[in-house]
């Protein structure tokens, strides 16, 4: 409704034409954003030490502020909230222009998508006035308080509870898999406000500041040494009802769109993303490099493994393109995106296994940095890519049930008060 008003608002004005927008964007970018290669960008995604990471973030906040001042922040956000009130086409132009340039990657996801997108879609006028401008200025970074240790793939089974107390709410529980919560400012939090109705009908969404005594942020160490993910423990966190977003107990209406925006990721018009940059590449050439390091390029068995890795990489790209085309052509439902998820996930598992196989005994013990080192570490955390961002098991369910139309799995959490739904014995992990 209010998002609608924003639309109209922009309608009434004259929209900057794409070409002049491109000129304006290019002028700013060439003048202010340093050249940066895809590999350098990828590096940024795996920063090791804390200092460096915090510096990165500070740098990205500054960049975002510059972009804001240049009138290039929040292309598809209404002007009323500090955005440009422009169209997805303009966003695409920007995405083309920033290729090969320094850019605030981290704060695109989840700050702009899904968080800011959700605030724009469900926030009250006051909430949008309060929260969107600081986001667009790079002053406030957001995290999704969505997954829970007990929940796994079943996010709607949130146990974090919000109890009403006059015109405020008191939240208790734990959230997990938030990227960089330790340097972020706000959390968008899905909580249970009613245990006596079925799972999806007792949820509500809140906004809360992360840096407060009642929110304890614990950084999680992953098997590859990365500490990007966090777990938060909420103890009697007080949230004014004015920071509730969406209706009470209607949080899954918000949640559904939340999931949608999350799936959109870099395809969303609310985030900026250089064209052609893919994330979490398969990196099949690393298998070749391991083989070269091992001096096995003439070994036919190794050649077949190098070829297999490259084959899977090429086909992963092809299947991604094809499914997108099939969806836009209406040949497949947009649920078919799960096919890409499934194929890429399985392929990456296989490629990492191949890299480790090729490494041979050096995969057990190696010296220094290099392809072999990465091969061993990547094998250790092989499944990471098949779990994060929705498990392959969920993807298989979606393909079978939503794409092929096979009978759905029986669910024992329907039409029962949530408190009566059987739950994990230990709620750890």
């Amino acid at each position, binding site marked *: 409704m209010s998002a609608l008003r924003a639309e109209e608002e922009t309608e009434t004005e004259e929209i900057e034409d794409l070409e002049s927008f491109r000129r304006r964007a290019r002028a700013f970018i060439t003048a202010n954003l340093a050249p940066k290669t895809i590999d350098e960008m990828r590096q940024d995604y795996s920063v090791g030490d804390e200092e460096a990471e915090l510096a990165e973030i500070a740098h990205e906040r500054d960049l975002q502020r510059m972009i804001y001042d240049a009138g290039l922040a929040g292309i598809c956000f209404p002007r009323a909230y500090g955005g440009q009130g422009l169209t997805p086409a303009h966003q695409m132009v920007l995405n083309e222009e920033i290729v090969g340039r320094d850019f605030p990657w981290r704060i695109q996801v989840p700050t702009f998508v899904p968080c800011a997108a959700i605030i724009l879609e469900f926030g009250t006028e006051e909430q949008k006035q309060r929260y969107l401008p600081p986001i667009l200025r790079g002053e406030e970074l957001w995290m999704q308080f969505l997954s829970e240790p007990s929940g796994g793939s079943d996010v709607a089974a949130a146990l974090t509870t919000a109890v009403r107390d006059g015109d405020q709410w008191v939240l208790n529980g734990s959230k997990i898999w938030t990227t960089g919560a330790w340097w972020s400012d706000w959390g968008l939090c899905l909580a249970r406000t009613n245990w006596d109705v079925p799972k999806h009908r007792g949820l509500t969404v809140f906004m809360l500041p992360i840096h407060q005594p009642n929110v304890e942020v614990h950084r999680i160490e992953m098997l590859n040494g990365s500490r990007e993910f966090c777990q938060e423990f909420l103890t009697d966190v007080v949230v004014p009802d004015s920071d509730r977003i969406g209706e009470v107990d209607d949080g899954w209406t918000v949640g559904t769109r939340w999931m949608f925006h999350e799936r959109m990721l870099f395809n969303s018009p609310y985030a900026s993303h250089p064209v052609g940059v893919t994330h979490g590449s398969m990196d*099949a*050439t690393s298998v*070749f*490099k391991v083989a*070269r390091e091992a001096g096995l*390029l003439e070994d*036919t068995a*190794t*050649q*077949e493994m*190098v*070829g*297999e890795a*490259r*084959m*899977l990489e*090429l*086909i992963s790209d*092809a*299947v991604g*393109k*094809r*499914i997108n*085309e*099939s969806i836009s*052509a209406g*040949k497949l439902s947009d649920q*078919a995106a799960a*096919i890409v998820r*499934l*194929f890429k996930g*399985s392929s990456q598992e296989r490629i990492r296994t191949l890299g480790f196989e090729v490494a041979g005994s050096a995969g057990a013990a190696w010296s220094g940095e290099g392809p072999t080192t990465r091969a061993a570490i990547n094998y250790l955390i092989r499944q990471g890519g098949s779990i994060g961002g929705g498990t392959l*098991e969920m*993807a*298989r*369910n979606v*393909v*079978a*049930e939503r*794409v*092929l139309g*096979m*009978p759905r*799995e029986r669910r024992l959490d329907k039409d029962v008060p949530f408190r009566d739904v059987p739950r994990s014995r230990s709620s750890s992990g």
Partner: protein
Amino acid sequence: MLINPTEEQEFFRATTERFLVEHAPPDALRRLRDDADGFDRDYWRRGAELGWTSLLVDEAHGGGSISGAGLVDLSLVAYEFGHHAAPGPLTATNVVASALSDRGSDGEQAEVLAGLLSGEAIAAWCAPELGARPDTWRTAVEIERAGDALVLRGTVRPVEHAGQAEHLLVTAREGAGLTQVLVPAGASGIAVETLETVDLTRRFGAVTFDGVRVGADAVVGVPGEASSDVGRQLRRAVTMLNAEAVGAMQAAFDMTVEWSFDRYSFGRPLASYQALKHRFADMMSWLQAGHAISDSACAAAQDDEPNADELGSAAKAFIGRYGGELIQDCVQLHGGIGVTFDHDLHLYLRRLTVNRSVAGTPREHLRRIAGIVEAREGEAA
């Protein structure tokens, strides 16, 4: 299979589909097992009238494409061939016809080409085996010059429809290079040993050239410099074989999905068992991947793009391996009848199995990809 074919392409595909439904039903295919040639000449001539043989041939030589992209158009025919496990020398005849259109086409070769276009004659492609690099080949056939004449010695195997073809396009080693010659199948000194195969309608032979003499006008292209021509022919053959194989995968998959809805076990349709649902999901991802890489490789081969060899080999290796696993799992999900001759499923398994093994096995294509990666990284370094 194209996501967005043009109207003309769709009409063309549908015409071939209707023709095959009528003239190549499963029972007819089973009967062809005992047919010496594996296909009917009249059937082939009528297919030629539908355009099966002319898409890769220049209009100047009586050919012509539907969309301007002849190989893409042809991939639609090949897909339908696989989808119906159809008989007929589609790959070899088109490869040879395109070679003649590109390189030969004067004098006698023009007549040969005309015969192939009309479907009166068919050709066999006596191709070399893949080398370690995209531009290297292994052939056991040698050419010696005897005055103006060329003398061929050596054996090629397996050669599809060698025993049925009127013309053989042979790649032979001449000194350091490769030379291609068009030889009449009846030329003296040619012996064809009939081979057994798993496909019901395709026939293979081992062709031995024991001092076969041909004139200089038998040469197709530039003597000693056929390497890139062979590469192009292989790309086209691989494109057709892949499209066929994907058609076979699609047919087997659709048949099995339907089966899983119709077939009940312990009071539930098979499609309601999650263990099977997850396997169908994997199969669906392989099927879509097969379509995807087959079409991208086809597009690249159409324009002979730099990445055409790498994509073609990736497609050939993937479709051969995963396509085999897909259809075998379809057999498994069918249970006992899936391994009986009266069922249709094996028609597609046979087609895929043969396509997997000719014009480079998955293993050979994987090594070829490795060679391409190494060459590229070598430059990069």
